[in-house]
Every structure is written in C-alpha cells, then in structure tokens.
C-alpha cells in the first residue's frame, strides 16, 4: 500500500491520446510564447547574478506566481486528482497545509533570506546555511543533498513531460522526453532563472485560470450538492475525514508537506530575487490565494470523477492517473481541455527549470566551496552544469520504469529532512551550531536514502502511517537541536546576527 501510494505521486504511465487539432494548436501556441519569453530573458542575462537570482530585480507579483508555479509540478494536475480519486479525502492532506505555509515561510524565511542575500551577495540556499554557521562543510553537504534530490525529482518530471508531449503530438515517449527537455533547457541555459521566473509568470497564470475553469465544470458536472450525497451513499470512506488512509498517515502527509514547504530550495531560493524587500508585506496573501486557486482542480476533479463513477455516468477508472484526462475529454469543452493540457506542461516545465537552476548553482557554487575552491566564471559553468544535469536527468528518465520511480519518491522528503533544521530553525535560533547543522543534514540524507532503499527492496517496511520522509525529518530535527545543545560555537558574524534580530 505504502509504495503504491508513493508511486502514485509520480506520473509514470502513459496518458490517453490527446492528438486533436485544437489541443495541438494550443500546445504549439504555448511553446511559442515560452520560447519568446526565453529569448527576451536571454538578452537580460549577462552575469552570474542575473543567471542565478534574476539580478535581484523581481516584483512581488511575478515572485508570487513564480513560487506557485515552481511549487506545483504536474502532480497537482494529474497525479493529485488521481490520488484523490483512489484515497478520497486522505489525499487532500498533501495540499491542506497551503493555507498556512505561505505565512509560515514569510515569517520564518523570506525576510532573512532576502536580507542575507543582499548583504552577503548570496545566490544559493546552501549559501545562507554556509554564512549562518560559518561552515563550508554545511554548505557543501546541503548542496550535495540538493543535487541528489534534484536528479531523481527532475527525472520524474521530465518523464511526465515526455508523456504529456507524446499524448498531445503522438511522437513516442522517447522523443517526448527529449523534445520537452530541449525546450526547457533552451530557455533555462540561455536565460537562466530570469527566463525561468518570467515563463513561470505566464505558466502560473495559465495554471490558475485552467484550474478555476475546470473546478467550475467539475462542480457543475458532478451535480453540486448531489455529488456529496451520491459518494457518501456508495462509498462512505471516500469523504470521511481521513479518507481511505489512517489518521496517522493523513497527519503525516500534513506534517511532511507543511514543514517541508520551508525547505524546497527551488521555491525559497526565489526570495533572493525580490527587488524591494518591503513588498514582502503582500507575499503571503498573494501566494496563498494563487496556490489555493490553482489547487482547486486537485480537489474538484478527484471528487467529481468519483461522483460520476458512482452515479454510473463514467466507467470506473482502470488507472487513477486517468482521472484528469478522461474528465477533461468527456465533460469539458475541447478548448478548455487544450488549455489544461498546456497548463500541465507549464506546471512540469516551470518546476524542471527551477530544479535545473538550483542544481547548477549547487554544482558550480556550493560543492566547490566545501573544498575551498571557487569557480572563476560562474555564468559559463552554470550554463554547462545546467546542460549536464539535464542530460543526466533525461537519460535517467528514459531508463524509465522502477529506477525513475524510486529516485523520484524521495525528492521532497530529502529536501525537507536535510534543509528544514539548518535553514528554517538555524536562521532563527542563535543557539544552533555548525556541528548541529552538519549532523542534521547527514542524518536527514542517510536516513532517507537508507530507509527508502530498504523499503524499495522490501527488506524493511515501516508500520502503517509512518512515512520515511516524516520519520527522517523528525530525526533530523532532533539531531539538530540535540547536537547544537551539547556543542559550542561562537555566535554568527555580526551582520548575520543583526539580520537574525530584525
């Protein structure tokens, strides 16, 4: 149950064929707009600062849309509704923290990361850990964790993009992977994160509009209030408070996805890019609205599809991941379906672009710092690293099957267990030490890798309700607090201390 549940986070099965003129035309238009934004952004990318932090010149509205687009991968549009269809309300615990996490990340991280970025010219998330603890080892380890997590996470997203492109254009999965990767790589390598942010603005807007329209259709087609009554009569567990999973499993989702939101490097890294830190005032409000609006599709399609099945208007799904494509093709106008499928590609590409950027930064900036090296031309090497990481991820994606699924499973959890303590707690607690940071990152990395590997090969299974990511996160937090309490380190540098007090 556990592994099948985790595998359902990943889009690894082919979608129903979507090769219809309207869908193909909208997809081509979408890719054309993305290419145009990439070309425009390339002209604005002249330095490593432009490439990695968009020259610290992004407004709060683009920042909001870019963080939302980077947070939500194709899972929010395809895997999520499918998971909702099979687990009922239990799946909702993945997105339930959205009402809280934006304010939490603003209070805990946004201001301090933005100010540290300005004072110390930081360009990566591990940079902040490095200057907070005066520890290249902590910075390098954090960078290594990011690279490990990103390769798997990116491979699963590129595979999903390949599946979407194959479904739309009928080119085959292999070509789908390489076409999707090439388009994303083209604007990422030339325009860096500047291209990423402004394509994210377009992609995020598209995702939000598509989600709202589909939600309205879902409620309409599902029968409004009748939807609930028909589901409760046929399958009462579906709409019970914890859905078809145990309360502990549901709460574990909330814990990992709530706290883990504080340490997704491809998302929190964007705080460095904000032009005016005083505009952070509106970030939680705008980002909460954007995120919740875009997640309406997750809830609406998952529930409406279930209602249509129990009402006999739709045959039971053989694969839960078909919930969105089948609902769109059978119950919404073709143009709306086309916009949503472009939205799925948008969601995946925006996440992949952000991953490319943070992994390239970790390779060219953080890991060399660990061994006291500094790359001379970070812009050039950033571009080379972006290409290298993308090729590795695409090759892994093409290897397909179980390996990709395995690598993708622990991405989110690995970010959470390695970065939450030293970043979210470390930037707010002066008693934290570099020993605590290094130990917690190591414990998070090792426990996630070991437990996921043992679980994958069925050598060890955790009890029902306990997830590797949740367990690793809490072990890492306790290690951080415990080791910091028994070790000593002079406080942070004066400027860092001042920012921690603001």
């Amino acid at each position, binding site marked *: 149950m556990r592994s099948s549940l985790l595998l359902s986070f990943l889009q690894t099965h082919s979608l129903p064929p979507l090769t219809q003129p309207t869908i193909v035309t909208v997809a081509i238009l979408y890719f054309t707009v993305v290419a145009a934004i990439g070309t425009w952004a390339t002209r604005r990318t002249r330095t490593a600062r432009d490439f990695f932090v968009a020259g610290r010149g992004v407004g709060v509205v683009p920042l909001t849309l870019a963080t939302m687009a980077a947070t939500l991968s194709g899972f929010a549009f395809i895997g999520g509704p499918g998971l909702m269809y099979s687990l009922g309300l239990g799946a909702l615990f993945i997105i339930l923290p959205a009402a809280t996490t934006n304010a939490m990340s603003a209070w805990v991280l946004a201001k301090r990361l933005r100010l540290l970025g300005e004072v110390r*010219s930081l360009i990566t998330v591990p940079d902040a850990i490095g200057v907070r603890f005066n520890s290249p080892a902590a910075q390098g380890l954090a960078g290594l964790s990011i690279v490990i997590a990103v390769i798997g996470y990116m491979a699963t997203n590129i595979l999903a993009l390949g599946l979407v492109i194959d479904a739309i254009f009928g080119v085959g999965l292999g070509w789908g992977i390489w076409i999707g990767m090439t388009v994303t790589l083209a604007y990422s390598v030339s325009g860096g994160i500047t291209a990423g942010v402004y394509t994210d603005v377009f992609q995020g807007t598209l995702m939000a509009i598509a989600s709202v329209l589909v939600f309205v259709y879902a409620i309409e087609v599902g029968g409004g209030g009748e939807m609930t009554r028909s589901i409760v009569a046929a399958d009462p567990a579906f709409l019970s408070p914890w859905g078809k999973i145990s309360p502990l499993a549901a709460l574990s989702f909330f814990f990992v996805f709530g706290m883990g939101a504080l340490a997704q490097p491809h998302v929190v890294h964007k705080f460095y890019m904000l032009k005016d*830190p005083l505009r952070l005032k509106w970030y939680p409000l705008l980002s909460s609205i954007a995120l919740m609006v875009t997640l309406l599709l997750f809830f609406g399609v998952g529930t409406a599809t279930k209602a249509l099945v129990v009402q006999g208007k739709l045959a039971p799904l053989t694969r839960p991941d078909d919930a969105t494509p089948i609902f769109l093709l059978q119950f919404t106008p073709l143009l709306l379906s086309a916009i949503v499928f472009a939205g799925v590609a948008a969601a995946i590409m925006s996440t992949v672009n952000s991953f490319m950027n943070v992994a390239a930064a970790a390779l060219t900036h953080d890991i060399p710092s660990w061994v006291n090296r500094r790359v001379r031309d970070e812009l050039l090497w950033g571009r080379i690293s972006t290409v290298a990481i993308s090729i590795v991820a695409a090759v892994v994606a093409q290897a397909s099957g179980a390996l990709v699924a395995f690598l993708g499973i622990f991405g989110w959890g690995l970010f959470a267990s390695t970065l939450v303590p030293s970043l979210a707690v470390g930037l707010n607690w002066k008693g934290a030490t570099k020993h605590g940071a290094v130990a917690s990152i190591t414990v998070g990395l090792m426990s996630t890798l070991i437990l996921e590997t043992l679980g994958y090969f069925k050598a060890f299974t955790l009890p029902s309700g306990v997830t590797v990511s949740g367990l690793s996160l809490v072990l890492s937090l306790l290690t951080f607090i415990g080791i910091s309490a028994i070790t000593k380190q002079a406080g942070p540098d004066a400027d860092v201390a001042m920012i921690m007090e603001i």
Partner: protein
Amino acid sequence: MAALTCAAIAIAAAYASAFLPGGATVISSVLMIIGIATMAVALMILGAIREGTRARPIGFALSFLFAVLVLGFGIPLFFSSRDIWLGLPAATAIIVYGVGILPVFVLPLVYAWTFDDRTLSGEDIERIRELTRNHADKSSE
C-alpha cells in the same frame, strides 16, 4: 525553542508508538496533532517575534492557528455525524474549511497588518543598506 523541541519529541513519539504491537492508536494521532500544531506555531514565533516589540497581534494570530489545528484535527478524531455542512460530511467539513481555509483569512492579513511595525521597516532597510556598503568596502580593500 523548548516548545519546538517538545513538538519534535511528540511527533517522534507518535511515530514510535506505531512500531508497538497493535500499531498506531488514537494516542499516536493525538500526539501527532499536538506535535504539528506546536511545531508550526513555535517556528512562526521564532521567526516573527522581535525583541522589544509587543507580540499581541501576532500572538493572537498564532494562538488562533494553534486552536484551529488542534480542534480542526482533534474534533474529527472523536466526533462523527451524518449531517452535511457546506457540501461535506460535518467532520470532514471541519478539517477542509477549518484547517484548509480558515487560516488564509487570518495569517496573511495579520502578517500584512503588522509588517511595517513588527517585521520590516524603512529604518531596517537603511541599516541593511549600510551593512551592504560596509561589505562592499571590505571586499574592495
């Protein structure tokens, strides 16, 4: 930090209890709920409360969040009803509308309302710009 430590211990205890014969019980879920609510609020207090400033509006918002999380998850654990509230079974509605929506009407607004006085002011920005200039001078030396 004491609250954050207790929260982490509560969550670890919730997971540990699942390893006992018979697996996770309602006590595991109660520990998890208390741990999650305490950890979220403790982290936000660490990040939001500045020395020498009044904590009241933010303190109110975070107390509200603690209550929403504990009651929003706790009530459905012990209470069930066949009533439909706003289109969902009552216990489910408490989670979806309580935990999933209610905080949006409080936390971001309190954040914006208290931002200038408690989070970041123009004066703070001036201090930061001074620090940045000092760093630039040191680097050029």
